[in-house]
């Protein structure tokens, strides 16, 4: 039978979760070559909000955990087609062109065309998850073998019981890209063209843009963007670049093993140092946890020796 029982209300668990949540942050980048184009991302985000709901089946559910993008940039690199002038037929015949003018190309190679999309403020997304409590006994790797509990106390290397929330599932919901994302893409394409041709006089830029045709249409065709840019972006981020899977993995790993909801020092401090008296501590030999609809309950068995 347990010697100690501590029950924490749902509100308290929510406060603990908020502390856990606020320690989560991500900064990642990657790029993938898809053949006709390359795509990459730089992302950083933290979490805000989140409603914690304790369940009767020894689990908790967190809903409406908002992803707040500190950075979400998508880079697209494409080779626009060879841009050449000339090549017209000088002497045509019913059987084809007998004599053709040379092609003179504007670039020495297919030009690299980089598009930079800053989607940070344009993507609304949130996470929900269900998790079960998981206890772990932590011994600091820096603690030398055989070190006494008192020396460990002095060196701040005491052992700890850790309570993690181990996700059974994590969902990420992409609600919407802002309506302006289409305009953002079009502007980014225009900017990329201007960057590519920045040192040319206006008439030359006009000529190249005229030969290229509507660059937005050209780029959208190369990137295979259909009518729905939201769908295309979600597919690019989620499927092609695997950003959403990455986020789910990072969140699940963080909650399951990186940062505990709660830590309990073992032996548990009862009284601190007092003059020449050493601190009073209570060894916790066993620790149990259970969640019901109202509370998270910890039960402890006190050990016989420290």
């Amino acid at each position, binding site marked *: 039978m347990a010697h100690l029982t501590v029950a924490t209300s749902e509100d308290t668990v929510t406060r603990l979760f908020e502390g856990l949540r606020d320690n989560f942050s991500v900064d990642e980048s990657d790029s993938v070559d898809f053949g006709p184009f390359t795509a990459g991302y730089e992302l950083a985000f933290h979490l805000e909000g989140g409603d914690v709901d304790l369940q009767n089946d020894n689990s908790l559910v967190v809903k409406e955990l908002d992803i707040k993008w500190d950075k979400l940039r998508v880079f697209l690199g494409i080779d626009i087609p060879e841009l050449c*002038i000339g090549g017209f037929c000088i002497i045509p015949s019913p059987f084809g062109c007998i004599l053709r003018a040379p092609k*003179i190309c504007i670039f020495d190679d297919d030009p690299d065309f980089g598009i930079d999309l800053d989607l940070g403020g344009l993507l609304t997304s949130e996470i929900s998850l269900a998790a079960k409590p998981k206890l772990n006994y932590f011994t600091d790797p820096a603690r030398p073998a055989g070190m006494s509990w008192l020396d460990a106390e002095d060196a701040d290397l005491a052992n700890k019981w850790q309570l993690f929330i181990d996700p059974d599932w994590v969902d990420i919901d992409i609600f919407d890209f802002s309506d302006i994302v289409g305009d953002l893409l079009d502007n980014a394409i225009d900017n990329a063209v201007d960057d590519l041709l920045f040192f*040319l006089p206006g008439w030359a830029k006009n000529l190249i843009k005229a030969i290229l045709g509507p660059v937005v249409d050209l780029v959208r065709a190369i990137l295979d963007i259909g009518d729905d840019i939201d769908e295309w972006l979600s597919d690019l981020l989620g499927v092609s670049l695997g950003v959403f899977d990455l986020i789910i993995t990072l969140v699940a790993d963080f909650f399951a093993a990186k940062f505990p909801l709660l830590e309990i020092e073992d032996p548990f401090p009862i009284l601190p140092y007092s003059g020449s008296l050493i601190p009073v501590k209570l060894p916790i030999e066993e620790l149990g946890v259970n969640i019901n609809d109202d509370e998270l309950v910890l039960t402890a068995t006190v050990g016989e020796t420290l």
Partner: protein
Amino acid sequence: MKTKINRHIFTQTRFQSNVLSQLGFIVHQYKESGRYQADVSRHGKPMYSFQIDVCKNHKKPQFSADLSALDKSIRGGNERSAAKECCCEPHDSVFELLEGGFGLFYVGSGPGGYSVCTYPIDQKPHAVFDSAVLGDGDMFGITLLRPGQYVFLEQNKKIKAAIEVEEVKPGKTPYVPPDPVYVDNQQLQKSKVIKLRAAQGLIYKASGGESITIELLKPNDDDSDNPELKIAHWSKPSGGSLNGLKAK
């Protein structure tokens, strides 16, 4: 790797049939079978040679010789090697051509400055084609990009005409330049103005003895907000020292 823009095609304002640069080309028809040697010079300096084999059995009715690319492939782009090879040791490069086919000479990259002279291989002084003076039936083609007013000049026959190049602006569909405009001596006597759109070809059919210069007189692009392309330029300072390297 950063793509380089072919800046030469945007900076040229003067085009000459006897000093070929990008955007211009010359065509000569090889009516008789035989082996020809082509000597290529740059700014009057002999650079390299190649051969043309004209035969009824060859299938190609056209060869296109990029004089700048051949310069690099034959001489390796080495200016100094030109003096040794100078036109006397024909390179292995041989263009095969159907009898009656056309040889097209152009400059595919760089600033140009090339001229070419071809002759039956054992009859060096007797040129069948010399880009310095166009022969009857030869063609000089040009693709003008910059909008503005140009002058077309042929000094030997005293031909002078105006060329107006209209600017094109981005539209809803890709711009395809209209078919080329063909002119000859007689037409230019009647019509003194040739109207073109940017990147539309102009082809002059020579009657023999011509050397053509086309020069931009007045651009009609409003580029007051856009600086000219910067070209490396050196001019000797008045003091005579070598401190005058600057961007023009």
